[in-house]
């Protein structure tokens, strides 16, 4: 089947014509393409409780996944929940990707939210469909509904043993009223068939044969490929353009300007010049021949090294107080021992393996796009705004994402495609190169954090001051924001889980000079690096083993509420009642990860072996993760020898995918800790590709282990929480091994990494 065929089949109108909604199946508001390979479904007319399940007369069941797949396994896990409550046979389930549609609820696939926000909804969807099948059977048999129950893809009349397959009931069930959500009977966890089981990834067979479709893979017969040379400095626009040489390249169809618009940058495309050609090679080649001079920008003095040096000075000065418990200053003056340190993390890029790509087609009635996007509804809004349409005129087909990590929640690249498709009056695919991706990302903020602690004569921490300076993500979207935001501080700083009587959080000013965005675990990266490194420093200063010191620092079992006065802790958007900040769970993870490590090496600095262990534990996205790392440091070289992860994520819907996320998080964390650094000079990014923005390679990857804490607590975040403790656990291990304290990432600045 050609790709073109696939795309045609899933077009909304065409699809409705094709199926006519008359296949005689139970259609809970969702019309589905036949065949099963389709990338999109069309939301029907029913209410939001009924959008996810369709039973077909051929006995197959289609389940919509409305969230984007980027490697976390969500196209398996969400349907797995539905299928369980439905009593469907997984082998007869077909997963269909939902179009962008607000009736699904949020489709913004970031913040490690898919399971925790939709676990209950998915169960309800499954149970609702199951009830309708049971009621249809009861009607057919003229028996009370409570004598009928679904099991393994059929409904059974318990007293008589009569049995009807789901497919046989599909038409009748479709005519049943949608049951009231309150009346639904959910399964007891002991009856789960799929929830909590390592169900195999539905897309894996396509991924190993090259059939899986990513944003870069979308193609049409009369498609133009666009490669865009964008302004190297944010805010800069095209001053002069000489495209005569580029136009002469055979196969170039058009050269078009894109205007970036005013700051703040938000999700707008950057200023640039697009070369449109019949194939990617021609577009890339011709683009190199463009002669562009760019206008001056207020950011063209930006130099990341001197920016960080400025922040390093600023954090030593008193800042704006955000939270304040007790009296830090008085406590400091009576401390018997004090310690301070400043931690620096550079800009980081997402570097998803698949560079961004989007395809668009614009007609009078609307716009249809295909792309690797994390938030199709935001695409609808942004594209609609750019084309002066209504969001519902924009149809968004979500392909597989070759990695997301937050980059693909920003729909700038889709807006580019839509604008160009409108100009060209034919379908256009915008292909980002790796250089485009590295140089025009929404970067993880460069940051500096300063910590100061006072200890009493028993070595207990009596006061703790933390002061953060980094350009806020909010500054990229709203003018005038030049301090870290409260929500960014709530990712690991203000929610400090330590029992310290005097504690203050402050911020310092930091303006943005590049687009700043959220990267896998967001400001938890720098906050956990600071907090978990500094706590390790204090353990050393007070002469205690890091694990026993931390247990004492975390203190008694309790639920912490970080809100204070005007400061409201957002708890990742969840109620503290349902997802408390539970120190007992944090300590459990700490104890379990500590036994993986030989923390007695502390102080010895691995004098003989050059080996040392470091640990770090951190709660983020409502999950608790501990990392233990063993490194060897010798002759200015360091190597990670092994790494262990203990994670309490609450109920793990698909334990194998939770493990794989933790494995991936350790590797993501190693990449950033060892080598991650985006540099900017004269406002422009100096890095360009994987040779100068390096990622961990197989030979650098140590043996890893993952241990999941058995839990029936509400399912919490999985995609991100593995990342934050990785960097501090490595830095703590380097200290144990060598006595060298890493306070500035990446480690490759200080040691040769191998």
């Amino acid at each position: 089947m050609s790709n073109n065929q696939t795309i045609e089949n899933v077009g909304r109108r065409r699809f409705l014509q094709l199926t006519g909604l008359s296949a005689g199946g139970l259609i809970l508001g969702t019309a589905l393409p036949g065949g099963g390979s389709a990338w999109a479904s069309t939301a029907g007319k029913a209410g939001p409780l009924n959008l996810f399940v369709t039973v077909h007369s051929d006995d197959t069941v289609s389940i919509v996944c409305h969230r984007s797949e980027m490697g976390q396994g969500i196209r398996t896990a969400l349907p797995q929940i539905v299928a369980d409550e439905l009593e469907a046979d997984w082998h007869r389930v077909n997963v269909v990707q939902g179009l962008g549609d607000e009736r699904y609820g949020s489709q913004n696939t970031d913040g490690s939210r898919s399971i925790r926000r939709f676990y209950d909804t998915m169960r309800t969807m499954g149970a609702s469909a199951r009830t309708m099948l049971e009621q249809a059977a009861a009607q057919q048999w003229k028996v009370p509904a409570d004598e009928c129950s679904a099991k393994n893809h059929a409904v059974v009349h318990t007293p008589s043993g009569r049995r009807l397959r789901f497919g046989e009931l599909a038409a009748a069930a479709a005519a049943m009223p949608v049951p009231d959500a309150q009346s639904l009977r959910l399964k007891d966890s002991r009856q789960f068939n799929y929830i909590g089981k390592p169900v195999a990834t539905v897309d894996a067979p396509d991924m190993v044969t090259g059939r899986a479709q990513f944003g870069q893979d979308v193609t049409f017969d009369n498609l133009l490929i666009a490669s865009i040379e964008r302004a190297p400095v944010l805010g800069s626009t095209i001053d002069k353009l000489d495209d005569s040489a580029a136009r002469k390249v055979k196969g170039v169809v058009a050269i078009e300007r894109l205007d970036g618009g005013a700051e703040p940058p938000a999700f707008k495309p950057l200023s640039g010049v697009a070369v449109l050609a019949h194939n990617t090679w021609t577009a890339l080649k011709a683009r190199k021949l463009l002669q562009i001079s760019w206008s001056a920008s207020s950011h063209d003095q930006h130099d990341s090294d001197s920016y960080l040096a400025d922040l390093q000075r600023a954090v030593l000065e008193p800042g704006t107080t955000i939270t304040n418990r007790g009296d830090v200053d008085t406590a400091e003056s009576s401390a018997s021992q004090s310690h301070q340190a400043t931690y620096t993390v550079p800009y980081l890029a997402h570097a998803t393996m698949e560079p961004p790509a989007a395809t668009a087609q614009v007609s009078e009635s609307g716009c249809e796009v295909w792309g690797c996007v994390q938030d199709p509804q935001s695409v609808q809004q942004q594209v609609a705004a750019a084309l002066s349409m209504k969001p519902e005129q924009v149809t968004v087909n979500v392909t597989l994402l070759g990695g997301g990590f937050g980059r693909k929640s920003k729909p700038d690249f889709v807006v580019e495609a839509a604008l160009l498709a409108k100009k060209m009056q034919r379908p256009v695919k915008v292909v980002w190169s790796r250089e485009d991706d590295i140089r025009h990302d929404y970067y993880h903020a460069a940051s500096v954090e300063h910590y100061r602690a006072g200890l009493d004569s028993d070595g207990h921490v009596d006061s703790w001051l933390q002061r953060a300076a980094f350009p806020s993500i909010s500054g990229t979207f709203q003018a005038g924001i030049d301090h870290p935001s409260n929500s960014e501080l709530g990712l690991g700083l203000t929610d400090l889980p330590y029992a310290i009587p005097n504690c203050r959080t402050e911020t310092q000013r930091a303006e943005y000079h590049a687009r700043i965005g959220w990267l896998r675990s967001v400001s938890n990266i720098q906050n956990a690096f600071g907090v978990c490194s500094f706590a390790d420093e204090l353990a050393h200063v007070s002469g205690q083993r890091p694990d026993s010191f931390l247990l004492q620092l975390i203190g008694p079992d309790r639920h912490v509420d970080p809100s204070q006065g005007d400061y409201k802790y957002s708890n990742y958007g969840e109620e503290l009642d349902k997802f408390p900040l539970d120190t007992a769970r944090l300590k459990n993870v700490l104890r379990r990860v500590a036994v993986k490590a030989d923390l007695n090496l502390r102080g010895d600095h691995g004098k003989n072996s050059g080996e040392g262990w470091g640990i770090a534990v951190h709660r983020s996205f409502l999950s608790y993760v501990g990392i233990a790392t063993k490194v060897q440091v010798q002759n200015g070289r360091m190597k990670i020898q092994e790494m262990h992860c203990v994670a309490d994520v609450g109920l793990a819907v698909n334990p194998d995918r939770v493990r794989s996320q933790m494995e991936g998080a350790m590797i993501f964390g190693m990449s950033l800790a060892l080598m991650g650094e985006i540099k900017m000079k004269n406002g422009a990014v100096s890095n360009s590709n994987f040779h100068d923005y390096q990622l961990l390679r197989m030979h650098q990857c140590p043996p890893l282990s993952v241990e999941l804490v058995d839990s029936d607590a509400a399912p919490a975040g999985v995609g991100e929480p593995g990342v934050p403790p990785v960097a501090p656990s490595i830095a703590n291990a380097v200290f144990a091994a060598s006595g060298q304290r890493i306070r500035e990432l990446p480690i490759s600045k200080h040691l040769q990494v191998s």
Partner: protein
Amino acid sequence: MQLSINGVSHEFDIDEDMPLLWVLRDELKLTGTKFGCGGGFCGACTIHLDGQPMRGCLTPARFAVGKQITTIEGLSENGDHPLQKAWVEHNVPQCGYCQSGQLMSAAALLATNASPSDAEIDRAMTGNLCRCGTYPRIKAAIKTAAGKNVADNRGGKD
């Protein structure tokens, strides 16, 4: 120009310098071979040329004339190459984007070395980046396909 791809001969009217990556993806709509960096750094575009692993993004079409090009789509008839089976068994892919290239590199390794050591696997696979971090499972899957016992805890099945 004429190119033999997965055992079938195709005629192209193209710039002979066009890298095979784009010949496959744009001209033949064979999109299993991926664009990751365009500079030889990531291995997402790995294909075989007469059985040798090559970077499709750096190999000009003219270089492949008279040679057999194999892509992920041609690695096996039915997705049943021992490596493909091992990949599914270990649930290797996360996002999946790098996996065509990983499989093509691994297949070239096993073709010349039926039971590679850890160090040999590292050497053969180090040119293939995986941003999602599937290396431990890739290694385990290669060992499974090579008929080796995977008695470690580096990822794999639950």
